[in-house]
């Protein structure tokens, strides 16, 4: 008897908790929507390693084709995932990798490690960003104005991490097709890596022909992110301060004759 009563109480608490959860979900507020001005967004970056291998070594030489075939048959995961955190407050964002000690996907690790753990500080008011990038043995603080992206707005929508998002498409770096999903509920115009400039926060980003996606898996508002905590990355002792254009020229000069793999490294280094 007593037991049943206790169970009932527990059920009540659970139902209340559930109701509360539903209540604070953003879409529950219809008329005066809950806009988020600060918070943390967890992004999962997925790189389809098999598809990149196919693009880079699948057709011409026999070794490459055999390697791709062997990889496809093997037990190794076909894609690599990585977690990033995007902290934002008003018009400042800071994008940082979430370190884990799990073994990495060993395939193409060498090619994909360049610019794979960027820290990006973006100030949307002054339209500037400072990105700390490790490209093999060298590190750079890419200090520049924001990349000017001509976004094409569409009427396609999807829900990402519980947020209704609208799709926009663009071309960056002359030829890379980008698909982004932004939400009205986070007025900050930021996004992962160097992708910004939409009316709301980018929660989904894909480079469909380059086989990479970034999707938000979690958005949290507590603990709160203070504006003061969002500061540009400092870099290390030997870090070079450089503009985007100068970095491109530097990489092109050194990796320009590396064929497709060189272009892949340059592309990732420039994102």
């Amino acid at each position, binding site marked *: 008897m007593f037991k049943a009563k206790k169970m009932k109480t527990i059920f009540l608490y659970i139902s209340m908790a559930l109701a509360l959860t539903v209540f604070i979900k953003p879409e529950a507020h219809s008329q005066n929507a809950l806009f988020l001005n600060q918070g943390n967004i967890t992004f999962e970056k997925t790189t389809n390693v098999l598809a990149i291998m196919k693009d880079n070594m699948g057709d011409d030489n026999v070794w490459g084709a055999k390697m791709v075939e*062997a990889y496809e048959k093997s037990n*190794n995961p076909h894609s690599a995932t990585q977690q990033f955190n995007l902290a934002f407050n008003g018009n400042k964002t800071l994008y940082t990798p979430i370190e884990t000690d799990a073994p*990495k996907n060993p*395939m193409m690790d*060498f090619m994909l490690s360049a610019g794979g753990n960027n820290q990006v500080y973006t100030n949307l008011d002054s339209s500037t960003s400072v990105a700390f990038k490790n490209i093999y043995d060298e590190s750079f603080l890419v200090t520049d104005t924001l990349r000017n992206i001509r976004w094409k707005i569409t009427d396609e929508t999807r829900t990402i991490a519980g947020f209704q998002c609208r799709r926009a498409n663009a071309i960056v770096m002359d030829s890379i097709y980008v698909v982004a999903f932004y939400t009205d509920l986070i*007025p900050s115009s930021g996004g992962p890596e160097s992708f910004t400039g939409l009316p709301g926060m980018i929660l989904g980003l894909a480079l469909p022909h380059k086989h990479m996606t970034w999707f938000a898996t979690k958005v949290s508002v507590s603990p709160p992110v203070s504006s003061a905590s969002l500061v540009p990355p400092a870099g290390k002792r030997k870090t070079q301060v450089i503009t985007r254009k100068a970095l491109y020229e530097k990489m092109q000069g050194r990796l320009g004759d590396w064929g497709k793999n060189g272009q892949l490294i340059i592309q990732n280094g*420039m994102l």
Partner: protein
Amino acid sequence: MTGCILLGLHSFAQSPRNLSGKVIDTSSHQALKNATVLLLNAKDSIMDQFTRTDQQGAYQLKNVDTGNYVLLVTYPEFADYVEKLHITNDSKTTLSDITLVEKAHLLEDVIVRQKIAAIRFKGDTTEFNADSFRTQPNANVEDLLKKLPGIQVDKDGKITAQGQTVEKVLVDGEEFFGDDPTLVTKNLRADMIDKVQLFDKTSEQAALTGIDDGQKQKTINLKLKEDKKNGYFGKLSAGVGTDQFYTGQGMFNYFKGKKKLAAYGTFANTGKMGLGFQDQMKYGLTGNNIEMMDGGGIMISGSGGDDALSSWNGNYNGHGIPVINSGGVHYDTKWNDDKDFLNLNYKVGGMSVKGTDATDLQSNLPTGVLLTHTNDDFRKSLFRQKLDAAYDLKIDSMATLKLNAGGSLSNNSTDDYYSTSSDRGVDRDTMVNRGNRTIHNNGKDKAFNFNAFYAQKFHKKGRALTVNLNEYNKNSDVDGYLYSKYDYYTDNALSDSTLTDQFKTSTSKTNTLDVKATYTEPLSTKSSVVVNYGINKATSNSDLKSYNKGAEGYTQLDKTYSNHYKFDQFAHVAGAAYSLKDNKVQVSAGTNISAVDYTQTDEYTGDELNRDFINWNPSASFMYKFSTTRNLRVGYYGNTTQPTISQLQPVQNNTDIQNVYIGNPDLKPSFRSSINGSYSDSKVLNQRYLGLYGNYSVVANPIVSNVTTDLDSGKSVYQYQNLHKNTSNYYLDLYYSRKMKKMWDMSMGIDLGLNGNKYINYTNNELNTTTSNNYSVGLYLAKYKEKVLDCSFRATLNYNSNNSTLQNQINNNYWSYTLHPDLDFFLPAKFQVHTDLTYDYQQATQSFDARKQTIWNAWLGKKFLKGDNLLLKLEAYDILDQNKGFSRSAYNNNISQTYFTTIHRYFMISLTWDFNKMGGTKKGAGSETTAVR
């Protein structure tokens, strides 16, 4: 003046203005804060600018040029507001109030329902064959989907299947976002699609594609057609040269879908044998199989290591003048969704070599120096055929079976004519012996091998069981004649003579069987334990008969040199290893232990030799990854080496009566421990590389030879003994390379090497410690410019030191160096020039003269035809005619030097034609370049 007016007009015509307005909620008539207001270009929907409304619902769009726009206002849970704007110089700058409607209200007014097709699908996955639904040429994916029963695509591109909205469209397992034709030129066309699969994302099919987020979603996966290869390619090449040198090659490769047939033939007397490795891979004429291990390791496995006719680099060992012909056929096919794979190979080849080896051997004995000169005129020929087949079967997603079987037949014959002379003293002042030996052998080999490999995976990630079975069987028959005559001298006068004239037959049969099971159990995501157990059985039977020559020919059996042995070995092998792997560190440690038992039976006497051994094989390794490009490895490896049967009880043989082996049944195993380490650091952007490798190994209780050389006859008797001292060897190598921007962007490399060993043996029952060390410095310079030049230069300097405690008064230390430029120039009109040169110098020692040699090669080529498919080459090999086969070596208390016949100067003209005709569906990809913007 005019300029000013024009400028003024221009700025007037463009005069941008600010537009302002207000956003209100229809139902509550309240101002909406934070609504998103976007201004898009009407022609391409590219966003011109955006803003958010303030507390009062007001917004302002700044510096709007004249033109056509779309005003888009959005707010969460409200319907989008869309208005076309035509902005002219006369347009009002204040826009009328915008009222947004909540979606819930909207639905009440306009009920939008989609029709649901009443089709049911069985199972988790419905699969449509794309080709069975006709579409227009260049139709897109949506056109195809519209044709499939049960799938609907509305005007906005929204897809509905089985009444549910399709959340995701995948292409080969990767999400397909749909390409915007105004932004992307390449498009996925309907005719590129092989199959359309429809499933719930949590089904097994979804898991196989590798993407699963735990949600149940209607998903469409588009399987692309494979880039099918149909057609052929090949190569024909022929060359003729001076001194009757020739070379010829033909290769042909034919594809049809998943079937491949290849054939090749080569014939040459220039030392070129079979196909080079590149060609072997290109034409698939190799059993080499690439496999990706769990964790990303790459395993390349070949079939049959003893294949004399398809060595890796396709070269013979350089001794003598060879004539080599070889050919082969390869066939492979895949079926049943690539789950089954069959590979067949047939190879045939013949090689004949003739030449002379001349060796000078200096033996440093406690009582003096013995110098032996041996001349060997040889002719060898080999004819061999080999057939092998491989069949791979993927039983299900968890189990695979691989079967390999192969057989070979070979005939060989060797003729050797040896003449030897041994003298005492550094100045050869005292004659010891003079000898002649002739050996003719004809042999036949038959070999067969079978391998079965079964791998089973389990649902727990990382758990695996493999079973490997291997059987090998070989029969050899050799018939031959031995004629040997030695004259022995005392005080430079003939004192004794021996003569052997025999006919010999030998048959041997070997059979080995190995079975091994390996089980891997993951302990966590990072660590695992591997255990293995196996048995190993080997039997062999060797029957050797020697007949002396009598009046009626070779009829008298020589009992001393005839014998029949049976050998049986059985071993249990078990082992366990632990490994841990994370982002930075990889550690593994384990040991194998084997219990070996063997018996040798003398079938003539019935005597048995029985031995058993316990062998250990511990190993450990540690790797630390500082970064992707910098790592450190340290490893330990230890193993027991049991004495071989020929060390315990060798077969009595009189083929070389100057060198006689006797057994030692009391031998105990030795134990080798080796430690190796490496450090590598590559600075990719700076193009610098540093590598350091080292190894030190030491053998405890080593089995060493005891050579008793009789200075009077020059005869040596060998017996093996255990030594209670350690022998050791080491090497250390440092490599550094970088690109030098200031010096024409050349690559430069420096190589420092250090290696040596300490070896101990008994010489005439006295302990002899030999220490040898080699120090080397290498320098490498290279410059490459695509389609212009490819040049390199390498210089190596060596110092060799050698010390033997028995004869430390003899100095055999010497310097040597090598210079090697290698130049390729690509000239206009499709000409190419190549030249390379190797200069070798070796300093004189107390025992040997100085030696220098320059080998200079060059060729001039010109390409013809549209695809550069025809190559005409004029080639000169060893232009200075200095190539003499030569090698030097030092071991125990011996130092030797060999000159051998080898190919020298010739000139050749050759023509190579590459042909191909390949068809197939090309994926519509254009080349893309990345640039900064």
